[in-house]
Structures are given as structure tokens and as C-alpha cells.
């Protein structure tokens, strides 16, 4: 036992029986999120079922000075929901109720453990849906989406999670309950944009307990266009061409040959054969407008050197195209025993260049890289494939990942589009931010979390000189905070 017996008793009182877990076998499956290169065993996992229980747990942790991490579905790709050593994992997946839907106002009030896609399923009967659609939407939770300001294919047109959160009830790291925003779609209230501050804070500012989200009417029509290219660069340049034409599609995605191969194996979509790169453009809106835009889009694409252009035949075909795209990361597991997903961003105009550089780096390292990304946002997701059983390959893969991020920044981009900083990219923060910037962030954190117990060790580099490289021992490993498998 790492903590005094009374600490565990207090947790037990809040979450009795099998809702407070401390045995080895129960903790093991919680030791990683979807970034399995890192794992840490917590002291306990608690499974609260009400808001009050969450608040009570936070208070107990605060009083005892024990760190905690909130966990939704554990699909974070940056170690965001990986446990803190000897800390408590607060698993929120049982707080999964949709509390209210207001079809007139087009809002829904939900608990943090509600699965993203479940909101859309529940409000479909009113002709509404929840727009942000991370590829993991069939399982990731709204709480996790808020922490990472998650995005998805269709965020090109509608914006990321932060654009769709109207009000938040939050428990701060000391147990205080606060509410931000307003449940109406208009009046966001006066004063600073506290929702903006909380969304994307990666669990450092406390736990979201109740969330009011904005809903949108389901578009009358979708038109999904597939354009096949013989080079990745051409596909990248086509994105700029589409945007330059003034069109604003609902989504614009690119998959390269490797990613296509993996996705095809998973869902048998029937993507155009032999493509080095595939551009998926989806138009959506009112029927007439979509038809008009479609004619224009075909025109633009003709000038970009696509060798084949196809349109989704029906809703079932469209479903498959997206299923393949959304499962693409995981399906790369079919091609390689291990991979690292990167999440860099470059200005759209630099896409072609960035892709060429990634390709060159991949050749240099002799490691395969599959590319699938939200092209419209310039949000790259290179998947660096390696075999963890081969000595030294993980380190090589991490080095390559680091180079790719450095390229993004050099081209005027940034470190993360949507997967968050977590532990994985924490030590790259100084590449992007100066010392003053980081100090300001740290100061805000220290004001909100005086004891430093809310998901510590994530997102912000610690005070001492941060290591700028990912290979070799991770600084957190050296400090004994995390361990690596």
C-alpha cells in the first residue's frame, strides 16, 4: 500500500465494493491509454457513478495530496489518460447519461462519460447531430474530447470541440464546483472566455462534470468525392487548389498508399485501385447548393492531375468510405506490430512540401510511414511503423517522429492538431513556446491547481531544463514517474 489505509477507506466509502479497485489484476488494464509505449500503474482506480461521487473523490485526493487523472475511454494517443504513479484514476465512463435535449434551442446536456457518437444517435430523431467527429467517435467520450479539444474530418467546416461547447460544470482540483458559459446558444456571458481556457486543458484544470453541447441540423445532402493521385504531393497540392477556389467542403482528407492498403483490408471499401494517394472531399448542405458546388469541385479537381474521380454511390458506400478512413490508424496494426501516430500541423499551403519531407525522412530511417490526415486543416497524422521486438527500433521511430514534428514547426506549423500534448510531446513544447509563454501557462496552472495534483506531468514541461529529444530515456522515466514497456 502506497498511501495510508485511511485514504483507501475514504475512497471505498465513496465508491464501495468493486467500484474502488486496488488489486494488481484490476489495475493492469488501466495502466496505458492508446499510446502503449508508456504505462504506469496507479494506486487505485475508482468508478464513480454520480457527479457527487466525483467531487468527493477529488476532495479526498486534494486533502491527501494524491494526484489523480480523469479517464474517459482511454483512447488518448498522447498518454493523456495514462495514470500518474501512485495516483488515482477516476474512470468516468459510467457517467454516461444524456440528461436533456432541447430540439428548439438545439442543445443537449450530457454527462462527461457519454460517448461522442451516442449524442448524434440520440438526437437523430429531431433531425440534429453533434458535429465534431473524431475518428474515434464510436468510443471516445465528451470529457476526453473537451480535455483535448478534439477534432475530426468534419471540423474543417464547423470547427473543433471548443466551438460546440456552450456551458460547463467543472470540479476544480481542490473540489470547488464552478460553472462556465451559458446554456443558451447566444449569450456566452461577459468576461473572459473560460470555456476556451478549459477546453484543451488536458485534465490539468479539473474534471468536467456536466456539459452543454451545441447541436446542428443534419445536412439535407452529402456528396462524397474520391480523387486518386499518383503522388502524395499532388494530392496535397489539390487541397490548396480546392480551398483557393472558394469552396468550403465539410471534410477534406488524404490517405496514402499504405493507409489505403490497411483500411481496405479492414473494411473492403473498394477505394480506387493503385492510388499513391487518395483525396476524400465531402460536400454537404442543401441539395441545390451541393449540386452546384459539386460541379465546381469536379472542375477544380480536373486541374490537379487526379487520374480517377469517383463519387459515393449511396449512403452505404459513403458509410464504408468513412469507416475505412476512421479506422485507418488501428488498421495499420495489420501492417506492422507497432506504430507511433504523430499529430503535427502545417499551413495548408505547405502540405505538399511537408509530405515530401516526411517521405524523404522515412527513406532515410528505413522505417515505413503511413499517412492519413485531415488535409483541410493541414493536420498531419504520419504513422511511423516499427517492430518493438527489434532492439533499437522504437528509439529510431521516436527519433523520426521528432524530426517530423521539427519539420512541421519549421514550416510554420505546430505540435498537435488534436491528440494533445500529454506525456508524449510535453518535452517538445519549448520548440514552439518561449520561456515566458511557458511560465504564463505554468502560472495559470498553479493558480488553479495549487497542489499540482490534477494530471501532473502532462502537457507542461517541468521547471528544470527540458530534454528536447524523445529517444533514449524519457525525462519522466528518469524521474520514475512513468515506466515503459
Amino acid at each position, binding site marked *: 500500500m502506497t498511501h495510508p489505509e485511511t485514504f483507501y477507506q475514504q475512497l471505498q466509502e465513496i465508491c464501495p465494493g*468493486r467500484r474502488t*479497485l486496488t*488489486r*494488481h*489484476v*484490476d489495475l*493492469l*488494464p*488501466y495502466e*496505458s*491509454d*492508446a499510446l*502503449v*509505449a508508456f504505462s504506469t500503474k496507479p494506486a487505485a482506480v475508482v*468508478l464513480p457513478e454520480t457527479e457527487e461521487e466525483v467531487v468527493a473523490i477529488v476532495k479526498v485526493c486534494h486533502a491527501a495530496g494524491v494526484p489523480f487523472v480523469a479517464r474517459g*475511454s*482511454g*483512447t488518448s494517443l498522447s498518454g493523456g489518460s495514462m495514470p500518474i504513479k501512485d495516483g488515482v484514476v477516476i*474512470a468516468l*465512463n*459510467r457517467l*454516461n447519461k444524456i440528461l436533456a435535449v432541447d430540439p428548439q434551442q438545439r442543445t443537449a446536456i450530457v454527462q462527461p462519460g457519454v*460517448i461522442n*457518437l451516442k449524442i448524434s444517435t440520440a438526437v437523430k430523431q429531431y433531425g440534429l447531430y453533434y458535429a465534431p467527429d473524431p475518428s*474515434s467517435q*464510436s*468510443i*471516445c467520450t465528451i470529457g476526453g474530447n473537451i480535455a483535448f479539444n478534439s477534432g475530426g474530418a468534419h471540423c474543417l467546416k464547423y470547427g473543433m470541440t471548443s466551438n460546440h461547447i456552450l456551458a460547463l460544470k467543472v470540479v476544480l482540483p481542490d473540489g470547488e464546483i464552478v460553472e462556465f458559459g451559458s446554456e443558451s446558444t447566444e449569450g456566452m456571458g461577459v468576461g473572459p472566455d473560460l470555456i476556451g481556457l478549459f477546453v484543451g486543458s488536458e485534465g490539468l484544470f479539473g474534471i468536467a462534470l456536466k456539459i452543454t453541447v451545441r447541436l446542428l441540423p443534419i445536412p439535407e445532402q452529402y456528396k462524397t468525392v474520391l480523387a486518386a493521385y499518383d503522388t502524395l504531393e499532388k494530392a496535397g497540392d489539390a487541397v490548396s487548389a480546392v480551398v483557393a477556389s472558394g469552396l468550403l467542403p465539410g471534410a477534406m482528407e488524404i490517405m496514402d498508399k499504405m493507409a489505403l492498403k490497411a*483500411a481496405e*483490408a*479492414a*473494411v473492403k471499401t473498394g477505394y480506387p485501385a493503385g492510388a499513391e494517394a487518395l483525396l476524400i472531399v465531402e460536400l454537404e448542405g442543401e441539395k441545390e447548393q451541393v449540386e452546384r458546388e459539386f460541379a465546381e469541385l469536379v472542375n477544380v479537381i480536373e486541374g490537379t492531375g487526379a487520374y480517377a474521380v469517383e463519387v459515393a454511390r449511396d449512403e452505404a458506400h459513403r458509410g464504408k468510405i468513412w469507416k475505412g478512413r476512421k*479506422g*485507418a*490508424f*488501428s*488498421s*495499420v*496494426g*495489420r501492417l506492422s*506490430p*507497432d*506504430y507511433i501516430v504523430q499529430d503535427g500541423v502545417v499551413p495548408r499551403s505547405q502540405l505538399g512540401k511537408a509530405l515530401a519531407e516526411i517521405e524523404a525522412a522515412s527513406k532515410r530511417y528505413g522505417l515505413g510511414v503511413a499517412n492519413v490526415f485531415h488535409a483541410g486543416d493541414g493536420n498531419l497524422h504520419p504513422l511511423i511503423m516499427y517492430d*518493438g*521486438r527489434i532492439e533499437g527500433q522504437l528509439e529510431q521511430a521516436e527519433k523520426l517522429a521528432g524530426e517530423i514534428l521539427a519539420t512541421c514547426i519549421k514550416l510554420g506549423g505546430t505540435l498537435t492538431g488534436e491528440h494533445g500534448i500529454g506525456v508524449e510531446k510535453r518535452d517538445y513544447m519549448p520548440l514552439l513556446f518561449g520561456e515566458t509563454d511557458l511560465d504564463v501557462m505554468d502560472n495559470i496552472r498553479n493558480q488553479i491547481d495549487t497542489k499540482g495534483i490534477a494530471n501532473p506531468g502532462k502537457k507542461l514541461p517541468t521547471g528544470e531544463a527540458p530534454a528536447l529529444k524523445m529517444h533514449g530515456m524519457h525525462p519522466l522515466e528518469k524521474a520514475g514517474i512513468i515506466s515503459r*514497456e
Partner: protein
Amino acid sequence: MQHKIDSKQHGPRGEAMTGAIESCVHCGFCLAACPTYTVLGEEMDSPRGRIYLMKNVLEGNLEQEEAQPFIDRCLGCMGCVPACPSGVAYGDLLTSYRAKVESERQRPLIDTVTRRMIIETLPYPARFRAAATAGKLGKLVQEALPDQLRTMLNMLPASLPKAIPIPPVVAAKGTKRARVAFLTGCVQTVLAPDINAATVNLLSANGVEVVIPQNQGCCGSILSHIGEEDRAMALAKNNLTAFAQIDGEVDAIITNAAGCGSGMHEYGLLFAWQPEQKMAEAFAAKVKDITVFLDELGLVGIPENQPERKVAYHDACHLAHAQGVTDPPRNLLSAIPNLTLCELNDGGLCCGSAGTYNLEQPDIAAQLGRMKAQAIADTGAETVVMGNIGCFTQVENHLAKMGATIRVMHTVQLLAQAYGV
């Protein structure tokens, strides 16, 4: 993730287990598709969690007994398989792991008694009939029985239907379009002999000659799914021989029980490294669910004059997930004039029956049964059809508990009814 499993150490199925574990990328996409995760809401009871626990046991980081409750709670419904983009062969992993563990474990006495009853009676129609009748007589003493045995008895119908004998060959009506062999199954022959009769009549009405090898028995699937590998193999061997004795070629080996179909498709794995492997693989390649076969063949001559019907379709796990059969039954049903087909909410979730699961994990099974009954009732359909006898009993019981008067039928029964055969 780093993997340190020494696959050689784990016997003929070591490779299958290692392969499945190594292809899991821990993305969590399978969680939403898993009934036990939906009901219990904890990572250990999810596919991702179970894979991780099995990995740790095989690597020697975790005692097998500690992990076992979570593996036991797995329905084997394969809901996680189509949900997994990485193509993790969870079915192979689970069957292999269970087979490995079963040979080494100690069970509490009551579990042993229940298992014995399953192993000794379910696969044998005559014994099962005797046990079932005795069980009914014994209703008076049920109060004194442990929960698990009581659940098992409660599953039985108040009175058993009369056996319907089926001749060794049933001729095709009209032009002969195909010739098939038919697996009659074990539990089903006792609990619902009508399903087999409907199957044979339906095939015949569609111009198919049906051969029924008389010395066939249980296919062994129910046992291989609970890790009783040796017994399963013995039963399977018997059927390999029985079907090999058919004179002349058959186009397919037909089953109307999804559990048997999925089990027989795994014969190759069951006989891995055995002399019968080739024969078993050839047999497995011929096995077809009745709906798949009829959908490929195409229905002929459904009478036009049909009543208005509102019918819900329930995806049996062993059909939809384990064999990927979802369209064929829907196509066949939609071919019946005036029939409105309804889909269920969360249709992919198991009804909780899953072979012997409602005998071994009655609480979770009951919760899933309630959820399924509710989803069926919500459609407003007057009939619900499915392709597996196992779900049949479970769904019927839970609809009755809800007080819903929705008729439960096998897909072939409804089709036979439409044909008037």
C-alpha cells in the same frame, strides 16, 4: 507495446494466441461493441482489457487464476471482432486460451456440477430430453437448488414438444436445383424440432434435395466454446465420418444453428496439427448457414398473397459477428411480400444467451436479456426472428418476463410459414 510471449511454450495454439495479442493496438474501438463492457463498465471486462490480461498471463506477469473471472465473463459473442480495425483474431485467441486454461484449472464444486451437466447432457438429444423431463418433475425441489442450476431449469419450456422424425433423404420439389447435407443439431432437436422440419421443407420447396446422415451427432461447438477441447474433438470426428459416408457430392453442409455454424467453421483450428486437419478444413469450407445458402440460391415461388407483418430481426452473435452473416437473412425476409422489417437499437449487442453463458453467468445474462427484450419491444413488431436456437430461449424468457406478447421464431420458420409448408 513490447511483447514477450514465448509462443512455443504454449502448444499448438501458441502462435494463434501470440498473433492475436500482438495485432491489438490498444485503440479501444472494440469497447462500445462489447456487451460486458456496456453492462459492467470496467476495462477488465472489455475486449481490450481481456487481451491485455491474457497477454500478461502468457508472459508470466499475472497469475492465471486472478485473470480468470474476467475471461469467464466473456460471452464469446465476437461483437468485438467486426468492431476491430486492426483485425485482431479474438475468437482464435479466446478459444485457444480457454482450451489451454481449462486443462489446468480447478473449479468450485458447484461450477463443476453445472459444467458436468452441460458436458454430459446438452450434446446428446436423448439424454437431454431425459434430463429436461426430470428437471420439470423436479420443479418442486427447485427452491433448494443453487442459483445456477435453477436458472438452467428455468430455461426449459413447461413441456417438451414432440419429436418430429425426419427421413434420411428429402426430395426436391419441382426442378432439382441443388443437393445439400443437413446437420440436425442436438439441443435444438429436443427444444424445437419444428425448426428442423421447417428447414427441410423450405429447402425442398426451393428445389433442394436434402440428405440427413443418420449417424450424425452434436458438432461439438458448444463444448469447444467453453474450452472442453478433447470432448469437442471426439464429437467433431464422429460427424466428419458421418458426413463423409454420404453417397455422391453435396453442394453444401447446411446448419440452421448459428452456434454450430461458427463452431464448424473453426474445425481447422480445432484439429490444428492433427491427422484430420485437411479433412476438417474441407468440411468447414462446405458449411453454410441456411440463410446464406438460400440467399445465394435465390428463393423461388413465394406465394404472393401474404398478410401484413411487422417483423424485427435479431442478429445472433454467432451468425452476425462470428460468421459475418447479416445481409442474407434480411434479404430473405424482405422478399416476403407485405413484410416490414424492423432494426433493433444497439442491435449488435449480445442477448446474453451465448451458448452456455446464461447457465454460467446468470446475472449478466439476465441484464443483457432484459436490454434485448426492451429493444425488441421498442420496435413495435409483433414477431421477432433470429437464426439461433440459443437466443431463442433467452429472448422468449425475457419477453415473457416483460409481459410482451411478441412471437419468437427462427428465420426459417417464418419463411416456411410464408411458403405454407
